[in-house]
C-alpha cells in the first residue's frame, strides 16, 4: 500500500527508521516541512494526516501506508494561496519563515479539532459540543508550535481572520 502525499502515491521507504519528516524532506524533496528539533518539541514539522495534525518527526513513515498526507506544498491550489497562507502574509505571521509551514498546517488541523468540539486545557466545559476559538483557546491550542522570531500576534490574527471571523 502506498502513502498518498498531496494527492500523489508514494512508496513507503525500505528503511523502517525513516521518519515521515525525513521521507518528505530527503527522499521526496518536499522541504517545506521543517525540522526544528526532531523530537516533537517545536512543531515545525507539523503536517496533516487524514486531516489531523501530526508532528512528522515523531512519525515513522512506514506507519502511514494508506493514509492521506497534506503538507504545506499541498495547500495552495492551482497556484492560488490557501486563505490562511494569504492571511499569514497580510498579518506578518512570520519573520524568518522557518516555523511557518508547521504553524499553518497546525492551525488548519486545530480549527478542525475545534469544529469537532474537542476540548483543550483552557476549555471551561469539557462536555460542550461547541468550541469558540477565543484568544485563549486559540493560543493554548497553538502552543505546540514555537516561533522564536516571536510572530505570535500576527499568527493569531491570521488564524482568527481565517477561521473565526470568516466563520469557517
Amino acid at each position, binding site marked *: 500500500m502506498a502513502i498518498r502525499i498531496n494527492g500523489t502515491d508514494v512508496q513507503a521507504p525500505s*528503511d523502517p*527508521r*525513516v521518519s515521515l519528516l*525525513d521521507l518528505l*524532506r*530527503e527522499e521526496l*524533496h*518536499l*522541504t*517545506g*516541512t*521543517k*525540522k*526544528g*528539533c*526532531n*523530537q*516533537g*518539541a*517545536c512543531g*515545525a514539522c507539523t503536517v496533516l494526516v487524514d486531516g489531523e495534525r501530526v508532528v512528522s518527526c515523531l512519525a515513522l513513515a512506514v506507519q502511514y501506508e494508506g493514509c492521506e498526507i497534506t*503538507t*504545506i*506544498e499541498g495547500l*495552495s491550489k492551482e497556484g492560488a*494561496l490557501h486563505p490562511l*497562507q494569504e492571511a*499569514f*502574509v*497580510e498579518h*506578518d505571521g*512570520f*519573520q*524568518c*519563515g*522557518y*516555523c*511557518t*509551514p508547521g504553524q*499553518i498546517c497546525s492551525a488548519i488541523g486545530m480549527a478542525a479539532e475545534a469544529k469537532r468540539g474537542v476540548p483543550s486545557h*483552557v476549555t471551561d466545559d469539557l462536555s460542550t459540543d461547541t468550541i469558540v476559538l477565543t*484568544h*485563549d483557546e*486559540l*493560543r*493554548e491550542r*497553538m*502552543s*505546540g*508550535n*514555537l*516561533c*522564536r*522570531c*516571536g*510572530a*505570535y*500576534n*500576527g499568527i*493569531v490574527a491570521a488564524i482568527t481572520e481565517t477561521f473565526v471571523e470568516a466563520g469557517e
Partner: protein
Amino acid sequence: MSILEQAKQAAQGAAQSVIQKAVELAPESWLPGGKPDPLIHQKHGLIGKPVSRIDGPLKVQGKATFAAEFPMDGLLYASVAFSTVPKGRIASLDTSAAEAAPGVVLVMTYRNAPRMKPMPVFMSNAKAAGGDNLPVMQDDRIHWNGQPVALVLAETQEQADHAKSLIRVTYEAEPATTRFVEAKAQNTQPGLFMGQPMKQEIGDAEAALAAAPVKVDVTYTTPRHNHNAIEPHAATIVWQGDELLVHDASQAVTHTAWSLSEVFGIEESQVHVTSPYVGGGFGSKSLWQHQVLGAAAAKLTGRPVRIALSREGVYRMTGGRTLTEQRMAIGAAQDGRFEAIIHTGTVAMTHHNAMPEPFILPTRSAYAARTFKLDVEVTYLDMIANTFMRAPGESVGTFALESAVDEVAVALGMDPVALRMVNEPSEDPTEKKPFSSRNIVEAYRTGAERFGWTKRNPVPGSVRDGEWQVGMGVATSTYPYHRMPGGAARLTLTRDGRMKVEIAAHEMGMGTSTAQTQVTADRFGLQLDQVDFAYGDSFLPGQVLAGGSQQTASIGASVVAAQHAMVAELLKLAGNDSPLAGLRADEVGGMEGGLAKLDEPGRHETYASILSRAQRDEVAVVGSAPPPLETMHWSMHSWGAMFCEVRVNSVTGEVRVSRFLGSFDCGRILNAKTASSQFRGGIIMGLGMALMEETQFDERNGRIMNPSLAEYHVPVHLDVPEIDVMWTDIADPHAPMGARGIGEIGITGVGAAVANAIYNATGKRIRDLPITLDKLM
C-alpha cells in the same frame, strides 16, 4: 584569546581612540551623516508604509530554500559525536564498528582529518567569523564538554546517526574549571569589547554613593541563554575542484567565506558562501566548527556533504550568551538626581573567544549622573565559547540598570517615569558627545498615555483580582546605532527602467529585502516592482554583518554611495541634449522613473530615455560606504520605554504577562509592518529571558543539561499577550534614511519591566533571572 591577540586588540583600540579624538573635533559637514540623507525629507514615498514581505508568498508555501534544503547528487549526511568531558585528551577511540556499519562512507577523527588552521575568531580581523580559534579535530585535546570528536558520513541520515552511536571514546580527563565562583576567585581580568576597555571612572563614584542620601547597592544575576533559532545550524557543502561552495545559514556570508579560506589555506575567491534564507539567527549563525568539519569531510570523500546539526548539536557546538553577575549601585539626591552610578561585575568567557558580555553598555548613555564607575571583569571557564546573542550587553545589562532605577524610585517614593525624566542627560554622560537624536521623553510620554500608566497603584501588592496579584512596571530600553566598515553595493539600471541592488547582506526575517526595496524605490523614483534586491551571497559586493543592528545603516550608506556614482554616470550619459544637461549630481534626484532637478522637477528625463539615447542596455556601478565616522562624532542610540502589566498567582507563583507596550524612538521606521514584528519579536524574547529562559550548565562537569526545546523553555503562544508597539518616527539626521537599527532594542529593558511589574504586584524584588515560580513562592 592569546595574550598576543589581546595586545593586538588593545593596540587597535589605542589607534582608534586617536582617530576618535580627531573625529570628535571635526566639523559636521566633513562627516558621513553630516548632511542629512535627502530621503529623510521625502514624505510621500514608500518608506514607512506597511508593505507585506516580498518573500512572504514563498515562505508561506514552504518554497524558500534554507541551508539544509539544497539538493545535490551523491549527497552524504553527517552525524557528529561529542566529548563527554570538559578537559583532557582522548585516550582511546574505536571507530571500527561505525566504519563497518551500513552506508558509512567516512568516519573522521583527529587521526584522519585534513590539516586545517583554526578559525579566525570573531573580532580578531574585520572579516573573522569564527566562534572560537581552537584546533578543529587536529589533535587529541578536549577543550569543552560537547566538543566534536568524530564525524560520520553516510548515505542517509539514519545510517550516519546509527553509526555514530557505535563509536567508542574514552578520555583521560584533566582538572577543569567549570565553577563560576571558583574561577572568579582564581582570576579575573578587565574585559575588552571591540578592542576598547570597558573600565571607566568619572569622579569618585564610591565616595558619592556613600554620601548620597538615598542609595541602592545590590547584585543582579542572569544565567546563560541559547538563541534557539527554530532552524538548527546547517550547511550543504561541496568542493568543485579547489573551490568550496557552502550553502550556509549565515548572518555573515563574506566573513564566513574569508574565514573558511584561511582555515583551508586557499584564496578568498575560492570560497563561495550563499545564504538566501536564514531560519532565525539572533547572533548565533556565524562560523562554528560544523561548517569546517563538513567541508573537511567533503574534501576527504570528494562528495557533497549535508551537515544539519541536531538540536542537541546546536547546544554542544554553537555558543550562547554567557552568565553575568552585576553589582548595580545608584546614589541619588532627595530630588532624585543621580549622584553616582556604579555598574560592575563579572562574566564567564573562554580563552578561545573574545566576547565578554558587555553589560555596562546601556549604562554609559542612559542617565546623567555626577559620577560613574563601570567595569566588566572576565573570568575563564572550560566551556563552549560563549557568543553574541540579541543585544549582547544591553539585554542583561538593562535588567540590572532598570531594576535598580525602579528600586531607587521606591526608596524615594517617586514615580519611576518621573525619576527617569529628572535624570535625562543633555549630552552623552560618559562619552561627552552630543546625541545625534534622542527623544526618549517623547517615547515615555506617549507610551505612558497609551498604556494608562497613571492608573498604576504605586503601593506594592495592593491590586488583586481573586487569587491574582496585579502590577505594572516600566523600564527604559536602549541599543546603539552601529555601522561597521566595509559596506559596498552594486547598482544595475537596465533600459526597461529596473534597478537591481546587489549586496552581501542577509535576510533572517528582519524584513531587510522588503524594507531595502522600498528605500531603493524611493531613492530612484521607482515603483516597488521595478526594484530587485539581491543578497545572501559572498560573491556580491560589501562586507555587511547582520549583527549589531547595523545592517540597515550599512546597506543604506552603501546604496547612497552607489547612487552618487550612478547619478554621475547617468548625467554623463545624458549629455547635452537632455533636460538634465549641465546639472551636477547633487542637484538631481530620482523622480518618476528618472532623474529630475530637485528644485525644478520639470527638468526630468526617464532612465529608459537616458539609456536608450546613449544606446546602453544597462549601467552598473559599485559604491563603497564611507568609514563610519558618524558614531565617533555623535552619540547614536535608539531608545524606548517598556510598559508591562503582570498577574502573579498568589497560590502558585505563576506569572502571566497580561499587557505589554513598547514605545520606541529609533529614528525613521522604514516599514511599519515588518518593524512591528521586529519590536514584538525582541520583546517576546525579552519575556522569555525574564520568566523562563536558562541554559542549565552542570558546574561539576561543564555539560549543558537541557540541550533541547523541551527543556529550554522559550515563550509559546499562550505565554504571549497582544503586544502593543508605537514609535516616535523622528528621523535621526545623521543616519542613512534617518533610521537606526531596530533588531535588538526590543529585547532590552523587558527583563526589568517585568521584574518591576512583579515587584509592584507582589512586593517581591527578584534580582536573579529567570523569575520562575519558586522565586515567588
